[in-house]
């Protein structure tokens, strides 16, 4: 059974970038910061592509944000997604608003499965997928992972970690939880969020990048979707966390043991 897959692609600061708070606490310094597709969303796109390779179907990728979010949509299209939806919105967002907008897109597209990242690495909220599932009255499997490691043969073969039943009615998901690994079965349509160990995302190939330029990206103004666009979580002020002072280098194990005993009293 071919699958229609809806995946999200948020534009975020590169995790390798140095993040600093502006002196007045109103935001972060953006000069010199690179932007990229949220790493968890990259994993979501990869998983959708693997499912499409296995079952056939279509991968639709959606990003909510300002004009520049198109870059991340193109990045997902270059990996192999079929078409993009850009929900154009220039102001601040939170998972309440994001999930409300995604619910509208979901209702228009009617996918079998929505795959989101487990968290945005800028706000680190870890909420949008769960809000979305509740809004739609669907089952969810968050923090999707798999039993095999990222060095395994299954991973080399790019097999999907999510197992969709042959009749396209259910998905089985292995998820990372406290104390171990849980397996859930969820009736489709459903919402899944990705954890880091689900897969190793592919790099876009040069032909992939060229093809992506011609793929469709439909722009939808957020204001046209009939959703309250006021964030419910308002950031009042940002600050640098208390700095941790580096200590000393010790010459050898003997000195380390002495310091741990006499100075730090940690052993």
């Amino acid at each position: 059974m071919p699958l229609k897959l809806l995946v999200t692609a948020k534009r975020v600061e590169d995790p390798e970038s140095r993040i600093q708070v502006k002196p007045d606490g109103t935001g972060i310094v953006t000069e010199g910061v690179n932007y990229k597709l949220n790493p968890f969303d990259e994993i979501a796109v990869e998983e959708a592509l693997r499912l499409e390779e296995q079952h056939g179907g279509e991968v639709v990728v959606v990003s909510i944000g300002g004009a520049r979010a198109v870059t991340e949509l193109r990045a997902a299209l270059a990996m192999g997604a079929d078409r993009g939806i850009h929900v154009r919105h220039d102001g601040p967002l939170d998972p309440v608003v994001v999930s409300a907008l995604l619910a509208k897109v979901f209702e228009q597209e009617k996918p079998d499965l929505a795959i989101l990242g487990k968290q945005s690495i800028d706000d680190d909220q870890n909420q949008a997928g769960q809000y979305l599932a509740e809004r739609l009255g669907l089952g969810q499997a968050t923090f999707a992972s798999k039993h095999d490691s990222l060095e395994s043969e299954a991973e080399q073969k790019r097999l999907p970690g999510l197992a969709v039943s042959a009749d396209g009615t259910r998905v089985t998901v292995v998820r990372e939880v406290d104390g171990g690994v849980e397996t859930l079965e969820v009736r489709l349509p459903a919402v899944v969020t990705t954890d880091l160990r689900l897969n190793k995302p592919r790099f876009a190939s040069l032909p992939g990048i060229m093809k992506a330029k011609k793929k469709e990206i439909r722009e939808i103004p957020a204001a046209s979707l009939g959703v309250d666009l006021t964030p419910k979580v308002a950031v009042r002020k940002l600050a640098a966390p208390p700095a941790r002072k580096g200590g000393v280098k010790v010459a050898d194990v003997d000195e380390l043991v002495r310091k741990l005993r006499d100075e730090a009293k940690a052993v």
Partner: protein
Amino acid sequence: MANVLIVAEQHAGHLRKASLHALSAGRELARRTGGRLAAALLGSGIDAAAAELAAHGVEVHVADAAVLEHPLAEAWAPVVADLARATGSTLVGAAATAVAKDVLPRVAARLEAGMATEVVGFGGEGSDLTFRRPMWAGNVLAEVEITTPVKVFTVRPTEFAAAPREGQGELRRAPVAVDAASLRTRHLGFVEVKSARPELTEARTIVAGGRGTKGDFRPVEALADALGAAVGATRAAVDAGWVPNDWQVGQTGKVVAPELYVAAGISGAIQHLAGMKGSRVIVAVNKDPDAPIFQIADYGLVADLFPALPELQAKLR
């Protein structure tokens, strides 16, 4: 006035310690808002854990039903939301565990609430209440306001003391109106990481290994066992399949704050530091003198971990 509901968790009949830390956060909130504190416990056959919770002086609403045996977000969310309404709670929170992160956003959606994840502190009083939480892998501390009437949150257990045993709370049965047949989610299995070692988030000492172990965690585990410590790992080690995911420390793994954290063969990426920089004493063993971990370690040893850890183990005896 805002009443506070803390959703506690149990595992195999025992109250999870993280929930007692969340209870302290709830007490602080009740004080700041002048409201009443209550707790909820969901599951199947959970009387013992409920009694344990009530012995911390809090009224406990016990939702005990077969359909709640596994923490399926779809099944738990309506029960918690109904309880929040029944108790007039406009502040609904829990410890930031995997279960709470899965369930509470759905509760928030049902209550049309905004939510703050991994809260490390509160500010203001009454209607001026704010939540302090890390963003960008802990590079930034944000003060956020939730503007909805109901506010949902998870707290980082390491930032709040465990609530002491004091007084005796009432136990109340909570109604469970979840129809098992209507659920779209089914629990198929759970593979537990069994360990005789202390739990990472509760351990006084942690020995952690990274890619520098090259997959050989024996020296890390041996030192941990000699110290009665828990074992932690970086994402690199987990991804490679060397160790269980449950050992991962960091932005997307566990957040820990032990008395002593020994990082061996770990470079000190910001995503790892996000999970352990609250430790009281940090020791780094790394053969690269320029590894970023040395910038935050109290004691840095530039050495190959394979001879260094066994030597440390022998000399600490």
